[in-house]
């Protein structure tokens, strides 16, 4: 296996994590299904 770096292009638009910018519909719905939340280190609008 070789691990030389590949220079990756970015996706045109990154997808933010659940509720990244403000509380979201998904987050409130997910509250009914999940207990724990994780957030990616990403941009906030």
């Amino acid at each position, binding site marked *: *296996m070789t691990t030389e770096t590949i220079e990756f292009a970015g996706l045109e638009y990154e997808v933010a994590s*659940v509720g*990244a910018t403000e509380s979201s519909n998904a987050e409130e719905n997910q509250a*009914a*299904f999940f207990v724990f939340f994780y957030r990616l280190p990403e941009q906030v609008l």
Partner: protein
Amino acid sequence: MHASHPELSHFVARVEQSFDREDPQSFWTLQDDFIALLRSGFPAAALNNELAQLAQNPAYQGDWQTNQLVLHRARGWALALWLYERPRRYLHSTPYYGMLAPLGDDCLHYEVYELPADHRNEVFDPAQRLSPAGAGLVGPGGVLLLHSDRQVYDFRSARPCVTLKFTTAAVQPMEWLFARDTLYAVQANDSTLDSTQLRVAAYTLGRLAHPSSREPLEYLSRHAHHAVRWAAVRNLAQIDREAALAGLERMSVDPHPHLRRAAAETLRRARREV
């Protein structure tokens, strides 16, 4: 909660009988059952029961979340008492189907926006813009059906409004945010926590770069969510360049256009390096 609320038991049985998780449209067949539950007096009885238990036992922990009391959760759907408080900074799409019924004397006012006819939830595009489609209100005893695959809702209420909320799990991979002033799309968020968690997991495995993670990352590079696929192949490259290049070749013909273009560009760069 079921033991003290036969109306809930009956509703749960009806949902389990009629709701097909593989066919989310079947959710709409349950409108009459939801209305029957709403009119049965169950919501007030359930809330009173919770409050009585809290009063009698300070250590009691019901299924309370930040702004809702979960009355029942099952695979693919949930029923909750939800407190609507205030509008958000952005207009949000709703990545699940739902039925909302305000309780008590409160009315839930809302404005509706149509998603563009060519909207594809899985392909974020900041050129997509909402079209205003009027306003409405749901009063006591009324039910609002959230046809969220083609509409976006913006709720208003003069004061916090308690609502009986019956929802499916996410039926779309992303929740879009739109600017209130321009109505253009500004961001897409994951609609399910597992998509976020899997990207975090891929990132962690890439940082650890242990050979044993190669197979899980290759598996993850075929996930249904395009951002998870991309996170998997990016982090696979930290472990096995050849396997990552093979994944990129496959993604250069991926159904998702963003992934297709990013993979093709990455392959061009990799070939230039050789």
